[in-house]
């Protein structure tokens, strides 16, 4: 089985297992968090860092990170791509190096992403009564499934709606171009605003907040996690009525302490110490 077929089959299985039908998928971050239980974070990082999943094999905990970006379709395909790596357990050591390499696992993850976001039978369902496939159709597919024009063009080609030349031509179009031409630029901008926002890993943040309440983490730890200032975090915590719990120390009055009899002589005997000070100056034996 080729990497492409393997990715496509896995995407179909994923949709089946989670009863996702052939409909467009909404918030992918929520889908990943809910189906895998793994925290997803949207991070502020360099332009060539798209997505990363990191796993601690000893505790079997994982985090998925994707870049904050003005390209919402790309962020979605990256998320779907990472989901494939998690499903197949495509792990490499952290210092393995060339992350841009086109390995079979990468090709499989790209195919998985394409078939997960835009299943061919979902596409056929939408286009059932279409007699003519135009750029307007492409725009509708891009808008409906929230995928890049390139991804939509490949799917249209694979489903037999367009020829290779049209696919090539449409793959060079951009989502904002289509959005402007076909009147859904407002929606596109809303998607952009969403994909360009940092997002802290939800479960970890909740747990860190609990740690703050218990006094084992500072508010700065929460600020760093969220990428906002300490002042802003302190204001938020205050408004939410969240404060570290006081662990009162119970002090006792020395007078209330029980009188413990101590027999130093017995100790001296046990240690075989002499009874009299050895120093001619008459100092006492240190105890």
């Amino acid at each position, binding site marked *: 089985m080729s990497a492409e077929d393997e990715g496509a089959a896995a995407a179909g299985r994923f949709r089946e297992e989670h009863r996702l039908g052939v409909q467009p998928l909404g918030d992918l971050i929520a889908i990943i968090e809910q189906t895998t239980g793994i*925290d997803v*974070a949207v*991070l*502020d*990082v*360099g332009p*060539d*860092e*798209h*997505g*990363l*999943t*990191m*796993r*601690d*094999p*000893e*505790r079997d*905990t994982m*985090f998925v*990170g994707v*870049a904050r970006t003005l390209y919402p379709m790309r962020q979605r395909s*990256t998320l779907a*791509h*990472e989901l494939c*790596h*998690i499903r197949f357990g495509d*792990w*490499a*050591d*952290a210092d*393995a*190096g060339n*992350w*841009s390499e086109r390995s079979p*696992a*990468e090709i499989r*993850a790209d195919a998985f992403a394409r078939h997960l976001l835009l299943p061919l039978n979902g596409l056929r369902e939408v286009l059932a009564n279409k007699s003519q496939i135009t750029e307007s159709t492409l725009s509708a597919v891009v808008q409906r499934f929230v995928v890049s024009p390139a991804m939509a063009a490949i799917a249209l080609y694979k489903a037999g709606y367009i020829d290779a030349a049209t696919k090539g031509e449409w793959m060079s179009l951009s989502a904002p171009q289509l959005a402007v031409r076909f009147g859904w630029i407002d929606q596109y901008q809303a998607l952009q605003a969403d994909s360009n926002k940092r997002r802290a890993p*939800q*479960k*970890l943040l*909740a*747990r*860190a*907040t*609990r*740690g703050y309440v*218990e006094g*084992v*983490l*500072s*508010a*700065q*730890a*929460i*600020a*760093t*996690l969220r990428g906002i*200032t*300490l002042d802003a975090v302190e204001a938020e915590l205050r408004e939410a009525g969240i404060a570290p719990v006081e662990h009162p120390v119970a002090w006792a009055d020395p007078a209330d302490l029980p009188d413990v009899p101590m027999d130093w002589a017995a100790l001296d005997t046990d240690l075989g110490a002499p009874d009299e000070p050895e120093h001619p100056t008459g100092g006492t034996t240190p105890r």
Partner: protein
Amino acid sequence: MIEGGTGELIERARVEAGLSQRALADKTGISQPTLSRIISGDRSAKMPEIVAIAWATGRTVAQLTGGRAVADRVQCAARATNGSGMDGMRQALLHFLELDDYLDEQAIPATI
């Protein structure tokens, strides 16, 4: 006394917490010249100083002392272009895993 590497880790924690060296000095009660020498590696940090810096930067003591057991064992799956080494994301996710590990050690339960 903690040797080597700590200065670098403290510097990274300081930058990620968005604190100037002066602000970190104020928050920890360590004088700025001393802090500067710790960061440059001219002077080792004493444990109480590390504890204060960890608290002020929102890190754990283990993260600042190089006792990063988690970093040595993590595995990754990435998507990058142009030969990116994914440094930003690796650091961020490593921080999440270390924080999670620390909260485990402190017996802080997951709340959701």
